[in-house]
């Protein structure tokens, strides 16, 4: 096939090498047309905002002569915005919450996704299995705006079904939306619950793709089901699982905004336990309108994220070169 391609290429554009720069641009005009919308999008919604991060080093002032003018004429303050953010009491709370929740999600998602994926790959009834998968994917397709109502129906302090059950059994009801101590559990449960249908698919597909003759061989050697899973299924899954774990480390400073902002219903007494970088930045932008400081916080988040991706990619390239991102 390669020969065919080469041969026909020489028929259609015989003097390719001799074209000058402008002829080359003209020859690619249709392809330029095809990448044009995406290129414009990336410039406006990626490259310009990336450059706009310079306001993190400014005391940004709005002017009525356009954004670029505002940026060029705002006073530079060096790293003051970063200092202000790092020295505030909020910083440590936000850092603790974001990293703490993310590490927990990382480990629990890793464990449960593999567990569900492997168990489902060993189930006998394919139709039931399909039904389970369909049901488990449902929350994944819903927004936190919707799910926050699901949660409220269970947790509402006066009408919620959980308090209904607690009082029916003689206990005293809990004002969940003012009880910070329960929220780490609620948030972690919800985060894992929403994603499990999606996260387990990868492992399910990997486990289903294992050559059955491995199992045959193990059975001939007298391996029990658990020994088969331990010695056949898991070793096949572990490389991809490790890769997923490492890749997700890059997102350790990011959080699912809706889970931390909408589900606790923006309740004041829960802020200390639900505040992450993303909600902090949003609240700084909307309540104090501190453009410089909120940009600085976001920039730090992005820089750490990018560094983590580079570091993990470097590690992956050494251990498992074929899985490296770049």
């Amino acid at each position, binding site marked *: *096939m390669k020969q065919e391609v080469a041969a026909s290429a020489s028929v259609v554009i015989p003097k390719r090498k001799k074209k000058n720069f402008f002829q080359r641009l003209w020859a690619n005009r249709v392809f330029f047309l095809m990448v044009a*919308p995406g290129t414009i999008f*990336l410039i406006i*919604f990626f490259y310009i905002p990336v450059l706009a991060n310079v306001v993190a080093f400014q005391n940004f002032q709005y002017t009525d002569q356009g954004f670029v003018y505002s940026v060029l004429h705002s006073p530079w303050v060096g790293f003051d915005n970063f200092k202000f953010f790092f020295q505030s009491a909020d910083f440590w709370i936000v850092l603790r919450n974001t990293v703490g929740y993310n590490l927990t999600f990382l480990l629990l998602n890793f464990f449960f996704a593999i567990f569900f994926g492997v168990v489902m790959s060993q189930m*006998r009834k394919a139709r039931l299995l399909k039904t389970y998968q369909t049901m488990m994917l449902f929350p994944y397709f819903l927004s936190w705006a919707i799910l926050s109502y*699901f949660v409220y129906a269970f947790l*509402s302090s006066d009408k919620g079904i959980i308090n209904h059950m607690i009082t029916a059994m003689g206990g005293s009801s809990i004002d969940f939306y003012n009880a910070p101590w329960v929220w780490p559990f609620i948030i972690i449960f919800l985060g894992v*619950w929403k994603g499990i249908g999606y996260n387990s*698919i990868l492992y399910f597909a990997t486990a289903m793709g294992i050559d059955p*003759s491995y199992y045959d061989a193990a059975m001939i050697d007298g391996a029990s089901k658990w020994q088969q899973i331990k010695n056949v299924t898991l070793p096949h899954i572990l490389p991809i699982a490790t890769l997923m774990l490492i890749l997700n480390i890059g997102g350790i400073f990011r959080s699912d905004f809706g889970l931390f902002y909408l589900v606790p219903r923006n309740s004041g007494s829960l802020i200390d336990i639900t505040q992450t970088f993303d909600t902090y930045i949003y609240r700084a932008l909307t309540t104090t309108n501190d453009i410089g400081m909120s940009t600085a916080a976001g920039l730090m988040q992005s820089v750490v994220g990018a560094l983590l991706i580079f570091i993990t990619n470097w590690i992956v390239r050494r251990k498992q070169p074929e899985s490296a991102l770049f």
Partner: protein
Amino acid sequence: MRQKKHITAVEIRKFSAGTDLFFNIFIGIFALSCIIPFFFIIILSLTKESDMTTYGYQFWPKHFVLTSYVYLGKMGKQVLQSLGVTVFVTIVGTVMNSLFSSTYAYAISRRDFAYARFFTIFALISMLFVPGMVPTYLVVTQMLGLQNNIWALILPMSFGVYNVLIMRSFFKTSIPEAIIESARIDGASEMRIFRSIVVPLAIPGIATISLFTSLGYWNDWMNALLYINVDNLVPLQYLLVKIQNNIQVMTSQMQAGASAAMVQNIPTEGMRFAVVVVATLPIALTYPFFQKYFVKGMTIGGVKG
């Protein structure tokens, strides 16, 4: 013979009947926990308002009524408006994103495109670094001036690098270069090749990214939270956010002819849940049919440069 052997081999690696039953119960319960809350919300939207105040939220209320939906119909101008905004944004946005992402992916998947490598890297870089909420906010509101403009809900999601990667690997694996070559020998222009040969072959891939994208638009409330503060541009999901603590957004739209008694008896709780049902039902009813495309998109996701 070979076929038969294959099937027995598949059977062999399953659980024994007892273990299978145990895990069926375990996973079955978990799977139920994923859909029961939605049924609970449907029941609540059908519960008589006074029952909710007296007995709290119940799985089996004393009175099933349609009052919430009747009120939604009578004074649901805002709900209809929001539904309209959501549908418009979803359709226009999905068309734009699928078109732009596919053409971009097609161009960078072609070896004849002299600058394919440049544009691949140009797009991939955006996956490494997140520009941040505030700079994006500044660009959208200050530079583009899109505050309170419906395009603020469409443009920020009108192209997706992840979709580009899915489509690129789709083009590379399922459209052989030979077909394109033969079309060109027959004298077809690049545009013609794309329109008449590539697009028809790429329909399954386009369906996958369209579904992901439309779901993203349908579920988006973040852009509205940042850029919209006029009622007539509030999409359904953001309406849910706004009525979490304050049903006024909806009741203020009450038609002029409404009597005072009607205003007093507004089933505020039930109406909230009815709006949740309206926002969820389209997804609940359609996704089981498109699930295979979603699963395909998820497993194809492990693409790389």
